[in-house]
């Protein structure tokens, strides 16, 4: 019926109880098992864990991006005085509160970097530093003219420093909104909503900047000579697809335990689906913007990044991205019904979560191949690029999957840590509106 307000269903189970603890335990087991397998697999490769660390950066970016996506919803909800999302906001808050755990797990690749490990990021390689010395004039002229002036920014110590700053800022912002929200559960003070609304504006600006820079540092610096100013925005689009898909699945998982069954309806899933749809297109829009400008400009230092991805085996991954991450979900999520029928939405959420991972893989892994080729292949000196590109391999490895699953376990453990107390902001002034939410 068409009431604008609704009150909480008397039988509603909105207490987390043991839910968080069991989720954390499951997550921890998954993390330990799969990361142990991954370390074993990485060790057997005998490449000083290079393959393991590449897979780890992809997996870490994955769980980081999911937190980035859901945290955006929390801030946006306050910023625009949203209504529909009040019933899922506590869950989104709990997911964004995984930031500290996520950033601690990232130390696995940051600490080796600081300790002098240089196979992961090319710019940390002695060759990159060698070009700073006057003796290697040829290197300076030919190999690294565009890298030279970036080595100040891309130094291991500065990188690690920025990493800590990002981690602290994300965690502090997520903690602020969660803390105020839980405070409101006790006092019911509507002024707390106002406080969060005022804070969400500046928080959004800080968030936008550090998300961009984190994407530049962790992902774009994999190919340090290449650059794209829209890269961070593109990463954010992909992150929000992953974030909303993950939010839908977590909400469904919680409902399966018998909690929140009366409060969260297909109307709310519909809205989660709308965001997923919107960001699916947004990702494609920014990805194409990045591609088209570089394709049209046709400058070697820019197109080389695409040359590694659009030829040889990688072209099939690129086509899979175009069809799987954009065309298919775009066409089918357009309909009202694919978003309202929960099993269909779940299908697309899982689908997009897989392709979101492939997106990150597509961004990172060509750099792994390139390093191997640049140092080991004889055909490299023959002409610009051509010989090397044809040899390019996608090189899927089981370690990619095990690291990915292990880090999903870390994320689940991080989420579970904060699924406690009320799963609904029970005294939020907009809760009634959210419960009665209907899409016209």
């Amino acid at each position, binding site marked *: 019926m*068409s009431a604008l307000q609704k009150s909480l269903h008397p039988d509603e189970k909105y207490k987390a109880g043991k839910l968080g603890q069991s989720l954390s335990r499951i997550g921890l087991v998954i993390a330990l098992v799969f990361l142990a397998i991954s370390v074993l697999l990485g060790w057997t490769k005998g490449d000083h864990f290079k393959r393991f660390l590449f897979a780890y950066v992809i997996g870490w970016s994955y769980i980081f991006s999911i937190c980035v996506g859901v945290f955006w919803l929390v801030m946006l909800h306050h910023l625009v005085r949203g209504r529909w999302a009040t019933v899922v906001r506590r869950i989104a808050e709990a997911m964004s509160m995984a930031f500290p755990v996520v950033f601690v797990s990232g130390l696995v690749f940051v600490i080796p970097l600081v300790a002098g490990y240089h196979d992961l990021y090319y710019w940390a390689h002695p060759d990159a530093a060698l070009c700073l010395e006057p003796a290697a004039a040829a290197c300076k002229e030919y190999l690294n003219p565009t890298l030279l002036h970036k080595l100040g920014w891309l130094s291991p110590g500065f990188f690690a420093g920025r990493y800590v700053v990002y981690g602290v800022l994300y965690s502090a912002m997520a903690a602020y909104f969660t803390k105020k929200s839980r405070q409101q559960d006790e006092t019911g003070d509507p002024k707390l909503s106002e406080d969060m609304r005022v804070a969400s504006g500046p928080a959004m600006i800080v968030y936008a900047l550090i998300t961009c820079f984190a994407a530049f540092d962790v992902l774009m610096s994999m190919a340090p000579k290449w650059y794209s100013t829209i890269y961070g925005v593109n990463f954010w689009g992909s992150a929000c697809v992953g974030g909303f898909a993950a939010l839908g699945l977590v909400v469904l998982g919680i409902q399966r335990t018998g909690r929140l069954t009366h409060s969260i309806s297909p109307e709310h899933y519909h809205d989660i689906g709308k965001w997923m749809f919107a960001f699916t297109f947004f990702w494609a829009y920014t990805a194409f913007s990045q591609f088209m400008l570089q394709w049209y400009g046709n400058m070697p230092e820019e197109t080389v990044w695409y040359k590694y991805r659009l030829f040889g085996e990688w072209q099939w991954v690129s086509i899979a991205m175009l069809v799987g991450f954009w065309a298919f979900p775009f066409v089918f999520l357009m309909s009202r019904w694919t978003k309202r029928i929960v099993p269909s939405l779940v299908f697309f959420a899982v689908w997009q979560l897989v392709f979101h991972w492939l997106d990150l893989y597509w961004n990172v892994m*060509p750099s792994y191949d*390139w390093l191997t080729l640049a140092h080991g292949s004889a055909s490299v000196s023959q002409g610009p690029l051509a010989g090397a590109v044809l040899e390019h391999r996608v090189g899927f490895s089981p370690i990619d999957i095990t690291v990915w699953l292990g880090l999903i376990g870390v994320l689940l453990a991080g989420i579970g840590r904060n699924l406690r107390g009320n799963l609904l902001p029970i005294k939020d002034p907009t809760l009634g509106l959210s419960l009665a939410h209907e899409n016209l």
Partner: protein
Amino acid sequence: MSDERTPGSPSGAGARSGANEHDDRRDGPLYGLLAEYDTPGELVEAARKVRDAGYTEFDCYSPFPVHGIDEAMGIKRTILPVLIFLGGFAGTCGGLLLQWWCNAYNWPWNISGKPVWSIPANVPIGFETTILLAVFTSFFGMWIANKLPQVWHPFFRNERFNHVTDDAFLLGIEARDRRFDAEATPRLLSEAGAISVERVHLDPDPATRQMPKWITAFIVASTAFALIPFAIAAKARTSHSPDPHIHIFPDMDFQPKYKSDTAMDLFGDGRENRGEISGTVARGSLGADDTFYRGIERGADGDHWTTKFPQQLEINEQLIKRGKNRFEIYCSPCHGYDGRGMGAIPQRVAASGGAWQARNLVDAGNPVAINMPNGQLFNTISNGYNTMMGYAAQIPHADRWAIVLYVRALQRSQNASLDDIPPDHRSGMQMPEATP
């Protein structure tokens, strides 16, 4: 008027008040019943009851969209989304077709050797046309589906209806509904909780229900008038005329001013151009140094092209780089970056089936440019050579010398052997590939 509302009365006449009395005197046939409800919730409930009673010719009126009203009234979901999708899809196909027809089929045009038909380049336009047609379908489809624009409705005669854009929630049933009954229908509406039920009559004069004739005439006339430009354009495409062009703004087409190289009676030589006055030099235009400004050395044995560089210039790496920069801007389109005469323009000539190339500046086999003294190269840049035009107007003197210097560097490097490279640099010649 709203404060005079009274609870519903099936008889109708008793409930009316104020301005409606004026209409009572000249009521025509009954159009329908208009019931008012206090809240959106009651309106939805009433709509459900009316639908359950089997009525089809009724509608609800509210100041804002009411959740659930479509379902309560038994209105089917609109097919507009499907139409919008098809409209958008037609926009995608139409946009791509337009670009293919223009660029690749009807008028293929070679732009810097880029392909005439290339999907990535066509995506932005395809995207725009998709949005355009989807939005058009959405906007005009909504008007058509809602039977808009509707400038007049019988309920407008009812004073209460004026509040529908403010605070009134109304339900109207038309008398033409086959279940309509003068007794039962008002009772149904009242039992559903109406705070008033009123009978609304059409105006007794049928002419007031017609569109005024002058509006029809205006629409027809303005439509015909709007077609005139198209008709003229269509006629012009299929006919010939000896008449001169029509000048809509003659004072812009024929401006009272003189352009260079036109005739003018005012001066004795009949020319508009005024040359330099003999015996004078413009400020900064003296150019007394023949070597620097003309590349000529004057000697006892006559004038000859200089083989050196003017003493004003310091020959260093910076000057070579300046020369490279200028060379790549002004010279490379024809002579190529390597000076071998196959720049972008000769390549384009070759691509379109012709055969022409610029002078090979570095060819040791036909060393015309290699054997030219510096001064002659400078003079060539300044004043041109065969079909090459002079660049004196575009490139300052010092820059022309920098280009000469760079051409000398090119001539040397393009004919270099390994011996020209210092031994300590030879190991670096096996360069790795360009990296991302």
